[in-house]
């Protein structure tokens, strides 16, 4: 797990995404190969946008409630939250560059 990302769980999830600073939640699992591919890019994005964006990791095996309430049905899924609301959702692995351009509106 990257040093720049935080871990979130079912308990306290609502608080974790409540901030006006955007929070990007990475829904992942140990058995998911494409999820591992995202570890490096997400850690870098978190490090490079410290203070502008929080990157949080949620293990779907251990946190079924959150997975269910946001109907995550494929991983990796990334959901961007701001003020407790879902703003954007990305399903499937993607490159760091692609993700940065997709997040551009929230990284200013």
């Amino acid at each position, binding site marked *: 797990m990257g040093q720049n990302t935080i871990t979130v769980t079912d308990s306290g999830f609502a608080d974790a995404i409540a901030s006006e600073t955007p929070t990007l939640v990475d829904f992942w699992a140990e058995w998911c*190969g494409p999820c591992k591919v995202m570890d490096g890019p997400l850690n870098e994005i978190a490090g490079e946008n410290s203070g502008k964006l929080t990157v949080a990791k949620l293990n779907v095996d251990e946190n079924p409630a959150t997975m269910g309430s946001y*109907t*995550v*049905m*494929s991983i990796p*899924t990334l959901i961007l939250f701001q003020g407790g609301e879902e703003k954007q959702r990305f399903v499937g692995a993607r*490159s760091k560059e692609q993700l940065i351009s997709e997040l551009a509106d929230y990284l200013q």
Partner: protein
Amino acid sequence: MAEKVLIIGSGPAGLTAAIYAARAELEPLMIEGVERGGQLMITTDVENYPGFSDGIMGPELMEQMRKQAERFGTRIVSSDVTAVDFSEQPFKVSVGSDEYTADSIIISTGASARWLGIEGEARLRGYGVSACATCDGFFFKEKELIVVGGGDTAMEEALFLTKFASKVTIIHRRDEFRASPIMVKRAVNHPNIDIIWDSVVEEVLGDTLVTGALIRNVKTDEVTTFNADGIFIAIGHVPNTKVFDGVLDLDDTGYIVTEPGTPVTSITGVFAAGDVTDKIYRQAVTAAGMGCQAALDAARFLDETT
């Protein structure tokens, strides 16, 4: 300065080519792609790759190959190639606005799941439509699922999905499977697998989540609605050759044409290895073997021309 060897793709073929090219001191540059590691990244147990008597997880095997390639000095760029120009030496490869040049190229971009191309399929991808049971099966605990296809992949996916789903229905357009007898037997005898023969899926139904599919019987033309929470497409693969269309000789199904038994393509100095050129064997170990051939041939080519 042009690279000596530029490798596109990072499955078993590309990484084996990288290991050989790096050990030959050709300092390979690998454009690994966003779907790094290839199809083994979405595979669980690999039980037929020699050297792992207890089996190995697909992603773990690819991580080991990648480390081995890096250990000998392979440099890796983690993006997709967006354009190529092989019309003259050195060859040009673009990754967005970055351009790389190389004296030789090894293409090992593999193949990806084929989609049906029907209404609702793309819109509901990630919301009940999937082509990867090992990735997404987990999300369908106690649900009812459809698997479309009749080959080994379809049987494997259906059997894997029974770990999670309460019922799996295989829909196949013919009245028999082309899968291997052992896989067919396992699927047909499974208490939680049903089979609908002679039928095709015409449309995936659902507003925000999959609720079912429209099924047409190809013999009677009768169309029925089949309720399901998810639909897994397992109808084969297509080679990842879009950026090479019009650049290299491809066959009518899009595979890169090579001289039989060799990685030699229609352009001297450009080699192809693995599933991008192989529609017969398509195994990790055959891809790795072809990657080795490509690196050795690239080394010989560079030797003769420089």
